[in-house]
Each structure stands twice: as structure tokens, then as C-alpha cells.
């Protein structure tokens, strides 16, 4: 009840229109929030790991997405509950920051929530739980750094990078050809990477998909692929050593911004106007020709007349190229985007070794390949696949792989996957817990239990006995003092992740633990939920 009393003992109302709001307070609010968070985690739990299952998501318009990428599932889930939305945000921020591990972070948060529910039942104050979790997460992050390995690679030896990307891809539907895709991802990232500054601009990697063919046909193109064709069907389909004029002005007479009228009142004026018009077109084409361009790429359309003039003067042209693509072309070919014909100079032209048009299948789809560019820093990954959903899913998986490769270039520390890092952290926390006096000790232990839930889910999804496997691996880690023991998801018979080549990036793992802890802390601190009731 939101009733309060003033100093004379008269009641007054703090929250207006009570009957239109529903309100949950105290322990009830926390429990409701926790169960909502757990419900979201429960959905994703089965998607974890190389043997994780997919979800079908049907959007409001009836389009079907099949995915096992945590961020994608949550984004499209049409969630109404406030706490569930927080979890969605959580996986999104992991996606933005790291790109991979979006499922793991939600499962981790769910496990933490589950543990805190038990602690709440013991009567431990939520703030104390939150503090305990905070301490535990710090121990975990330190431990991760402790067990992390530096991992050496350079431009000539990319195999370690490929191995890491393969770990990411193995949980996706594309794992049939994960090796080739991982190689593509690594090559793409290395092509655009700035190894000196340890920075990678992923915007330079364009991922294009086209339905048809097989996944194996997916290729990396050192250049740009644009889904456009030549503006005139009879223009040459293949240009070598192209000099490209990149224009953002249409091949049309200029349209001054100021309002004006050209009045025609005599026959002479009519005729001069006509000549003027023809001259415009002629000049425009001549200008392009004069600076020596052999290909025109234009953001706008051309008039029929201009189109023919271009064709006539052997100047192939592409029209209606989108702004983003135009920028990429400019970056790749080292050209400048020219907004006016007058400013066209030979230096501003982009250069490409080969421009060709390629057609696919039985339909008349054509794509324009711009290859062997002056600046090879822009690359395109061109995905082929059996159907639209496979391609979309491949795009998402490749994005994850690209992010992982980028993170490794930024920071080349890795931890081992397959739940081994979690188990090791859990052991470290468990050992440290006894050193803390006070109620937090319980929370710290609970954190260790929550960490166990990730290898547990992995084992469960792989069809192993979860509890047996986990305890076996745990004891092995202590006995051999080897933090690389994890869950053997692929049933190969060894559980040393070093031998199985299952890696994850250190910052990815750290971020997972930190983000999950933060969200759980936030949820635990809520003790009052006021929401408009249904009407």
C-alpha cells in the first residue's frame, strides 16, 4: 500500500491511480525478477556448446529465423517482461563488446540468479549477496589471468588463430565446413588488421550472401562485391586495370537548390535551351573521359541519353550504388568520392586490377566484383548456401568468428574452452572463500556453484552424464593441477582442451563473468516493481 500519513495522522496517497498500477515489493519482487531471469536463461541453456540445439523464431511478419546465436535469439524473442529485457540487453552488450559468448553470458547470469534465490531463502540480505558475488567475480577474473596463455602467431603462422575461430564456429550449424570458414575469417581479419596498432576495423569486412550453391563455395574476395550490374546491357562485362570515377552526382542536368524558373517565351530561347541540355550531357561524359577514367560508379541514376552516351564512348558505368558500398569502394580502390563533375581530377580516381560481372544460376542475378584493388584493406566474404536461413545463420556465425579473431589480435591471451576455465575459476573461488569472514562467504561459494553450471550445461547438451562428468573433470584438475581439463563434448576420449585445440579469448571470458555479475547485482538490488496493470 502506498499510503502514508502526514504529521497530523491524515492519510495521503503517494502513487496516484493505484488501481491502474500493479506493484510488487520486497522479497516477492526479487523472487519474481529472479524467476523471470531464470526463464530466459533456461531458453538459451540448450543452445550452449558444440552440440547445442537451434531455435526457430517466427517474427511478427511470419519470417522464419533459425539460429543458435544467443544474441539473435534474444533480440527476436519479443520479450515483454522488464527483467527479461535486462537479460536481452546483457547478451547484446556482450555481442557489441566481444561478439562471441552471448549464450554463455546469459546462462551464467541465470545460474547466478538461481544461486541467489537459495541464499535469499536463507535470509541473507540481497546487498550482501551482491557484494559476495562482486568479490568472487574479482577472484575469478584474476584466476583467469593467471591461467591464461600468451599465444603466439604472426602473419605467416595463422594456424593458432584458425583453431580459435573454429572453436567459435563449432557450436553453429556451419560446423560442417568450419575449417574453411575459420580460415576465411582469419584471412579477412588479417587483411584489414593493423598489426602495429593492434587494431581491426571490422567495417572494412563486408559480408555478402547469395542463395544457391554450397557452403563450401563460400569465398573470400580481396575486393568488393556489389549487387549491381552495368547500367547498359551492352557495356563490357570485364575491365582490366580499371580507373574508377566514384561519383555522387547524377548524370542529369543540375538542379540548383535555390528556387528558380526558366521562362521560355520565344522560339530562340527554346532552341538554345535544347542545345544547352545536350551540351550538359556531353560535357559530363567528356569530363569523366578526360580525366582518364575507365569505369564510372555513381550513387544516382542516369538519364537514358547519358546512359547511351557513356556506352557510346566506351565508358562502362554502374548506377544506383548505395552509400555504404560507395564508401567501401572508395576505400578499397584508393579513390575519392567526387560530388561534382567539375572537381573530377585524375588523382581522385580509384584503381582496381579487375572489375567483372558474374551471373549466378538460372535467374538473372548479377554481381559486380571489384578485385585487385589499390588498397587491399577492404575485403568481402561472399557466402553461398542452400537457403536463406542458412546464409543468415552463416553471416551471424562468421561475425562471431571475425570478432574472435579481432580480439585475439588486440590481445593475444587465451584461456581454454570446454568449460575448463569455469571449472578452474570455480575451484579457485572455492579455495578462497574460506578466507572471507562474514555472510559474504556463502555468496562466494554460491558463485563457485554457479560457475559449475556452464560445464554442466555443456555436458548435458552433449548427451553426457552432467554430474558424473563434472565431478570427474574437477577432481582431475585438482589432481593433475592442470587447468586445461574440460568437458569432452565431441566424444573423442580426451578432456585436455589443449590437445583438443579448444580456445577462447581471455577478454571474452572475463567480460562474460563481469557482465553477468553486474546484471545479477542490478537485479538483486531491485526491491520494488511498479508497472502499469493491464487494461
Amino acid at each position, binding site marked *: 500500500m502506498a499510503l502514508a500519513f502526514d504529521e497530523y495522522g491524515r492519510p495521503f496517497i503517494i502513487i496516484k491511480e493505484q488501481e491502474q498500477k500493479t506493484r510488487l515489493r520486497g522479497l*516477492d519482487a526479487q*523472487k519474481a525478477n529472479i*524467476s*523471470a531471469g531464470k*526463464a530466459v536463461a533456461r*531458453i538459451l541453456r*540448450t543452445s550452449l556448446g558444440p552440440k547445442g*540445439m*537451434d*531455435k*526457430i*523464431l*517466427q517474427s*511478427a511478419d511470419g519470417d*522464419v529465423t*533459425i539460429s543458435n546465436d544467443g544474441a539473435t*535469439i534474444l533480440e*527476436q*524473442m*519479443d520479450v*515483454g*517482461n522488464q527483467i*527479461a529485457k535486462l537479460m536481452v540487453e546483457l547478451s547484446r552488450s556482450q555481442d557489441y563488446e566481444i561478439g562471441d559468448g552471448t549464450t554463455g553470458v546469459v546462462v551464467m547470469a541465470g545460474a547466478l540468479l538461481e544461486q541467489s534465490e537459495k541464499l535469499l531463502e536463507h535470509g541473507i540480505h540481497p546487498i550482501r549477496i551482491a557484494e559476495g558475488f562482486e568479490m568472487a567475480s574479482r577472484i575469478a577474473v584474476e584466476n583467469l589471468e593467471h591461467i591464461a596463455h600468451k599465444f603466439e602467431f604472426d602473419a605467416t603462422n595463422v594456424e593458432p588463430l584458425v583453431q580459435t575461430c573454429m572453436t567459435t564456429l563449432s557450436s553453429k*550449424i556451419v560446423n560442417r565446413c568450419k575449417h574453411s570458414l575459420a580460415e576465411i575469417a582469419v584471412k579477412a581479419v588479417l587483411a584489414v588488421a593493423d598489426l602495429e596498432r593492434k587494431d581491426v576495423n571490422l567495417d572494412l569486412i563486408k559480408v555478402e550472401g547469395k*542463395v*544457391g550453391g*554450397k557452403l563450401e563455395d563460400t569465398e573470400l574476395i580481396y575486393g568488393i562485391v556489389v549487387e549491381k550490374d552495368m547500367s*547498359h546491357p*551492352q557495356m563490357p562485362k570485364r575491365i582490366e586495370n580499371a580507373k574508377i570515377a566514384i561519383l555522387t552526382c547524377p548524370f542529369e542536368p*543540375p*538542379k*540548383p537548390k535555390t528556387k528558380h*524558373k*526558366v*521562362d*521560355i*517565351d*520565344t*522560339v530562340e530561347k*527554346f*532552341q538554345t*535551351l*535544347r542545345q544547352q541540355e*545536350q551540351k550538359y550531357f556531353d560535357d559530363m561524359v567528356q569530363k569523366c573521359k578526360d580525366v582518364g577514367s575507365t569505369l564510372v560508379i555513381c550513387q544516382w541514376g542516369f*538519364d*537514358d*541519353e547519358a546512359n*547511351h*552516351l557513356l*556506352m*557510346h564512348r566506351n565508358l562502362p558505368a554502374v548506377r544506383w550504388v548505395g552509400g555504404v558500398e560507395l564508401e567501401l569502394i572508395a576505400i578499397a580502390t584508393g579513390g575519392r568520392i567526387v560530388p561534382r563533375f567539375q572537381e573530377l581530377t585524375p588523382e581522385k580516381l580509384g584503381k582496381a586490377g579487375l572489375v567483372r560481372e558474374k551471373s*549466378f*544460376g*538460372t*535467374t*538473372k542475378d548479377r554481381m559486380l566484383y571489384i578485385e585487385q584493388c589499390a588498397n587491399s584493406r577492404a575485403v568481402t566474404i561472399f557466402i553461398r*548456401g*542452400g*537457403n536463406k*536461413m542458412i546464409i543468415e545463420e552463416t553471416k551471424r556465425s562468421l561475425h562471431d568468428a571475425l570478432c574472435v579473431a579481432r580480439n585475439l589480435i588486440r590481445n593475444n591471451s587465451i584461456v581454454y574452452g570446454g568449460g575448463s576455465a569455469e571449472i578452474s575459476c570455480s575451484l579457485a573461488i572455492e579455495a578462497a572463500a574460506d578466507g572471507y569472514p562474514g555472510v559474504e562467504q556463502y555468496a562466494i561459494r554460491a558463485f563457485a556453484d554457479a560457475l559449475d553450471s556452464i560445464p554442466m550445461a555443456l555436458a548435458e547438451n552433449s548427451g553426457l552424464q552432467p554430474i558424473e562428468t563434472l565431478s570427474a573433470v574437477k577432481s582431475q584438475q585438482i589432481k593433475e593441477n592442470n587447468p586445461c581439463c574440460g568437458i569432452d563434448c565431441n566424444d573423442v576420449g580426451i578432456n585436455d582442451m589443449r590437445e583438443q585445440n579448444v580456445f577462447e579469448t581471455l577478454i571474452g571470458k572475463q567480460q562474460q563473468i563481469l557482465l553477468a555479475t553486474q546484471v545479477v547485482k542490478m537485479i538483486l538490488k531491485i526491491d520494488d516493481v511498479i508497472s502499469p496493470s493491464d487494461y
Partner: protein
Amino acid sequence: MAIDSLFKDEATEEKGERARMASFIGAMAIADVVKTTLGPKGMDKILQSAGRGHSVTVTNDGATILKSLHIDNPAAKVLVDISKVQDDEVGDGTTSVVVLAGELLREAEKLVSAKIHPMTIISGYRMAAECARDALLKRVMDNKEDAEKFKSDLMKIAMTTLSSKILSQDKEHFAQLSVEAVMRLKGSTNLESIQIIKKPGGSLRDSFLDEGFILDKKIGIGQPKRIENAKILVANTAMDTDKVKIYGARVRVDSMAKVAEIEEAEKEKMREKVKKIIAHGINCFVNRQLIYNFPEELFADSGILAIEHADFDGIERLGLVTGGEIASTFDNPESVKLGHCKLIEEIMIGEDKLIHFSGVEMGQACTIVLRGASFHVLDEAERSLHDALCVLSQTVVDSRVLLGGGWPEMVMAKEVDELARKTPGKKSHAIEAFSRSLQAIPTIIADNAGLDSADLIAQLRAEHHKEGSTAGIDVISGAVGDMEKLGISEAFKVKQAVLLSATEAAEMILRVDEIITCAPRRREDRM
């Protein structure tokens, strides 16, 4: 504390077994819809659109049927999608791919209920698909070197493709047509240059391939009806009033006399344009846009054949056939490439007059004129012919050929069976299931033909136990026959695409353990 509103209103969630069931059943239902159309004795479907006019399509093309269905089940949508892609990519096998995927899921359902984990089934299927593909690769024939044999291969493929369609009565005739048309393309897969004109009347047998080019247009009145050694200018330009393209221009006059002057100037402008066009030394002018009466009259005066409003495809093809360039400005007559042909004449097909360009320079494009009793027949004939053309053009690129009539399926099934015997673990069940699904295709073909499928398949299997067997189902005589002698062939590319897409789709559906459906968008929201 129960949470009842994790999702928004009307959004639903189905989990685990139920989700899997829903997707299996949806996919199998779709496969069953098209199942009866498989094979030379497959039946057709009538599709009635829900839109205005309730237009009717009669077809047996899997992709066409599935495209027209309104489907709500997400798994079914995956199947529709693969059939669409199959259509785009290779053109034929659209039914087979859906049926095979359906069969794979049907087998998978049995395995799942026998408590085999979907992931195990998937890895088994993957191994089996790989093995099946290798089996095909081993038995594939390639006659690219031998032009004569290659052509007969193409003939056989065309006949096999057409035999399951409405054209099966005249399949030899149409196979001949399509092989000739595709051979003219010289290896390009651009089917746009094969024009198909449909004219009701006559019988299917009266359809013919024309080496030249037929434009479905009339010749302007008063213009020559027949031109020999024609020089053709193909253009895309406005031949009504030429608009002033400078922005903001407008005509302002203050007296009637001035209006007349301007009008005269306009006419003068057009006259000049026509003069420029005539100066190219042409005797035929084809424009994509309208030609108004005034310029038409001018053309007629100088004895030039002017054809207006040829649509964009028509223009492009004409450019391709005659070797002329599509022009929009006419200031430099010397450098514009004109198209040439020996003879332009007006011909009659049925009751319609068409313009026929014969003796063209470049033989790449050609026209197939289809005749038939009704529009439905013609539409279906066009689809069938399209399938055949697609398959042929793909075969020209990838010339590997297999036998037909269920032969490839039996070859694959045999190899896959052997693999199953060698593989330890639960996967072998999945591999065996894969082989059963492969055998389901000849079974369905036999069933559709009203034959005793169980008996035939058993015979076929025994036959295939011998090394290098060429046995398949001969639907005509209803027995096991030698496919090589009967001349039933299929393109390797089609079979491979069927195998891989179907496995991929089945895999995708198998991996699903949860379906989340958003609330359908309300129509009012958009208002």
C-alpha cells in the same frame, strides 16, 4: 512465483518434444503435398489463387506449387525455401528435394522416438550424404570431349526432365527444341536470350523453334511489311514530345501566336531528331518507348519500318540478336553500331501478326513459339520447358551425367548401406535411415505409376548388388529395366544439389528444440 508474462501477449513458445514434433509434422505434410507429382506418372495439382479472379494454375512443378501455398509452419517454410533455391540454381528437381528432405525427417522421427539424440542423427546424416556424393562421383559419366555423344546426352536429359511434365506426349519434339536452343547459347546460362512466345491455338506439336527473333508487335500503318537486308537501329528514346530536362524550365507565353510558334519549334525539334535517326542509313527503327503519330508518319514517309513500345527484354534481346547497340542519342551516326538481318517480315501465328527477324548475325538468341489448346496448357508447357532449358544450360557448364529412373538413388543407397555396416555406434542407425530415405524416392515414383513398389524395389536392390549395374525403374513397362539402353539420364548437378540441399534442410530442422513465435503484427498498427 510463476512468471506468466515473459513474452508479450500472443507470443508463444513451444519446447522440446513438442517443438520437434511440430516441425517434423509440418515438413512431412509439405513433402506429402508434392509427393504425388514425382516421376513420369506423377499427378498434377490445381492451384486456385485467393486473390481477385480466382485464377487457376494447373501444374506439376514442385516449386510452383510450393510457392503458391500459404504456410504458417516454420519448418515447412524451410522446405519451401529450399525448393525455391533449387529452382533458381538448377531449375529442376524441385519436387525431389522436398520429398527427400521430408523422407529424411520421417526417418529421423522414428530414430528420435527410439531415443537417439538429434545431434547423433545429424552427424550420421552428414557422413551418409558425403558417402552418397562420393558414390555418385565414382559412377558419373562425362562426355564433354565427344560432341556427338554430349549432344545425345543432352537429348536424353531433356527427355527425362520433360517426361514428368505435361509435354511428355511430345517429349522428343520438345527435347529437340530445347537442346537446339541451349546449344545456341554457347555455354552461357543466360536464359533471357531464349524467348518463349505463347500463342493459344493449334496443338503442342505445332510448337517450333525459330532461329531468328520474333517480336510480338505490329508494324506501323503505311510502312513496308517486308524488308530485305535490313539495317536496324535499336533505340531507347522518347519519341513523343522530348521533355526539357533542365530543372525549373517552363513555357510562358503571352499570345496565341507565340503558342503556335513554340509548338512549331517543338515539331521542328522532333523532325530534326527523326532526320538524325534517318541519317543513320537505316530501314528499320525499333524503340522501347512509344512513337507518336507524328514521327511515325515521318518514318513512314521515308520508307522506314518503325516499331514502337518493344518492352525492355525485347530490346535487349534484339540488341543481342542483331548485334546493334541500344542507342539513346543520335548525333554521331557514323559510330553507332547498327544491327543487321537478312529479312524482316510480318508473319501470322494463329490469328496474331508478329514481326519476324530472320537471318540474324549473332545466333545467340532464339525464340520458341509454343502452341497449345488453352492458356493453362501453355503456362504449364512454358514452366516445363523452362525446367528443361535450365537443366540443359547447367549441364553445358557441368557436363557430368548420371542415369535416371531411380538409378542414382539406388547406387547411393547401396554405398550408404555399406558405410552403415562399417560404422560403429548409434550413428549407423542414422546412416541406415539415410539409405532408406534414398530408396523412398524410387518407391514413390513406382507408387505414383501404380506399380507394385515393394516388389520392384526389392528386384532393383538385388539387381544393384551386382557390380556396375545400370538398372532402374522403367515406368512405361512397369518393370526393372536397363536405364542405359532406355536412354534415361539426369544431370549430375541436379542430383547433387538435391542431395546436399535436402540434407542441409533436414539437418536444420533436426537441430531445433524450441519454437518461439512472435505475436502476429496487427494490421491496424500500420494504418
